């Protein structure tokens, strides 16, 4: 009995350590590196070598990080970004930069990728490679890990919004809805975007609870605190009603 108890504890501790490590690796935080400048690296495009600032000085950028050999999330991610961008009917100016984070990718491979998605003729889209991907990854908080067994990068699906001053103003992790792209485009164009801090563990009297799995919010204890002044006053008035009167005083 005692042995199995210790075994159980050891298992819990071990699994926690492992899980924590993995969490550290993929910090899915969309806040990391937010409002920090992106590394101003040189990139190779169909038109030749340019620096990132040559792009964002002209118009804000939506940066999509992929690699051509990817058998995982890159394809769905590109399709998702393409579809969402197609749905946006806005006048805002911006470019979509699809940048390979695999140093073995060549510019011709990236242009083939563009062709596969029918984006090679679209002037809004730029497919590129770079020699300085580590600097860029570090500046946006992107940590792909090479897995030699599967010969693939283990990585998240990341889209980064960069404004006209070269600052990271929004990050989208995973395959996202059109409305998220709407606010991404607004944000990189310095338009006002509604935002609100999510409930946290140390926020005891939150007005809502939020379930990230379902995306649903529910009214919570904070709303009751709002009613407290009225409830307490009603109790006070009930107390006052018992006051002994001296009508003729």
């Amino acid at each position, binding site marked *: 009995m005692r042995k199995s108890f210790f075994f159980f504890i050891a298992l819990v501790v071990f699994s926690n350590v492992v899980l924590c490590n993995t969490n550290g690796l993929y910090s899915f935080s969309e806040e990391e590196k937010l409002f920090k400048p992106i590394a101003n690296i040189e990139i190779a495009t169909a038109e030749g070598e340019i620096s990132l600032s040559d792009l964002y000085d002209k118009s804000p950028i939506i940066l999509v990080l992929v690699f051509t050999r990817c058998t995982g999330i890159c394809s769905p991610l590109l399709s998702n970004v393409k579809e969402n961008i197609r749905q946006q009917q806005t006048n805002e100016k911006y470019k979509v930069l699809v940048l390979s984070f695999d140093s073995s990718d060549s510019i011709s491979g990236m242009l083939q990728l563009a062709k596969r998605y029918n984006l090679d003729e679209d002037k809004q889209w730029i497919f590129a490679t770079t020699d300085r991907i580590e600097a860029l990854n570090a500046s946006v908080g992107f940590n792909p890990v090479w897995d030699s067994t599967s010969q693939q990068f283990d990585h998240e699906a990341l889209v980064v919004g960069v404004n006209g001053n070269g600052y990271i103003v929004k990050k989208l992790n995973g395959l996202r809805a059109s409305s998220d792209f709407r606010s991404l485009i607004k944000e990189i164009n310095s338009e006002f975007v*509604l935002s*609100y*801090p999510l*409930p*946290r563990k*140390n*926020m*005891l*009297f*939150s*007005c*809502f609870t939020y379930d990230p799995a379902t995306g649903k919010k529910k*009214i919570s204890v*904070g*709303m009751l*605190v*709002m009613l*407290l*002044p*009225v409830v*307490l*006053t009603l109790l*006070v*008035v009930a107390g*006052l*009603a018992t*006051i*002994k*009167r*001296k*009508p003729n*005083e």
Partner: protein
Amino acid sequence: MASLSLKKITAVWIYTILILFVLAILMGITMRFTQGKTISVSPIEFYLLMTTHGVTMIGIWAAAGIVAVNYLLARYIKVSTSLNVFALVFTVISILMLWASTFIGKFHAGWTFLYPLPFHIAWETWATPMFLWSLMVLSVSWFIWTLGSMVQILKKYSLRQSFAIQHISKKSPSVETPPLVLISMVSLLGMVVCFIAAIILLALLLAEYYSAGKFVNDPLLIKNLTFFFGHTIANEALYLGLATLYELLPEVSGRPKFKTTWYVALGWNCAIIFILGAFFHHLYMDFVQPKGFQIFGQIASYFATIPSVVVTIISIVTLLYNNKIKWSLVNLLFFIGLMGWIIGGIGAVIDATISNNIILHNTLWVPAHFHTYNVMGNVLFSLAFFVWVANEFSDNNDLQKYNKLVMPLLMVGGFGFVLMFYWAGAYSVPRRFAMYPSELSSGTALASAAAWFACIYLVGVLLVLFDVLKKCAKVFSSSSH
């Protein structure tokens, strides 16, 4: 009737309020001249003046309302002088703490100290807790003050009678509730609610401050509580001013007293809920606020005005229409105050309509409407009471010769001052800008003009102040009860 001790404490309150009023006007004029680039103060100084001016003004005119109804209630009930002394002592302590936090500690997060601004320390570290504690002292002591005043009323009238419910169901009930008692009760109840909201709000903010990050607040909850307190206290202060008007206007105009009728009773009882729900209109821009609250905010803002405004206008029209009125400074102040209150109220309803608020939000339209019903509304109601009570203290209704100038000065100065706010608001000039950029140059010119109008208003106030203070001094040499 008011005892000598009540008269004395009322006189001390009047001294305190009028002196703080003049200082707060000077702060306002400094701000407006700064915006008009006539003088130059640093942005930090501008915002600490704005913070001090806002809290001080809201505080003194709420206090003036409670002081006035307490004095007049002595005609119907036994009023506790010691409660008024208690409130005065803690008010002075709280104001000293507040001014220390702003003038010495440089705290300048605005009178609404919107979360999380007080925690982004851009001033002395001690200034944030000092500011929050100053408001806590004020809220707790005024909670006791207002609750105590209600208890005094309930020693004579039952709960039902104090809210004049018997007037709704019967045409001539055996116990009559004077309008003063009804409106005081409605307003004091609202104040009790808002001070409880303030105590909860300040406790939450202080808890976050002292927990060093272990506890954080939800901005939505804090904003709701802030305006539950802030909006409500500013509005209830006005209703206390109206209570004074109902009691004194017929008397000084040589007309019979107002009686509580079924529509007066019904109107004021309905007003309780609507006044308490109207603060939701401050959160129209907060998209996380449940939609139901937003709609309720608009409806409550409309309905809050109907009972009190419609009922009051009907009552005043019946008082004045086709009757010979003995005009004096007191009833002129009440009458013009009523006009200012209505004009400001219309400005408020325009702003409280969601489709307009999208445009007017945080423009100078906001200070325009609340300054109208304060500077040309509630302040005039309270000044009317001060003049009336000072005459009573000195047994002297004579006005100084220069008092003929009071009304023209107050009207030209006051309406001119608020008109500049409206004008700038209609041009979308933002509020709370220490200096306007070149794109908003109309804001600069209007600010300068507003400051000169405010100087004219100040001269009118000073004339009233000298007369009132001189007459109030008589009460300290008097020994009769």
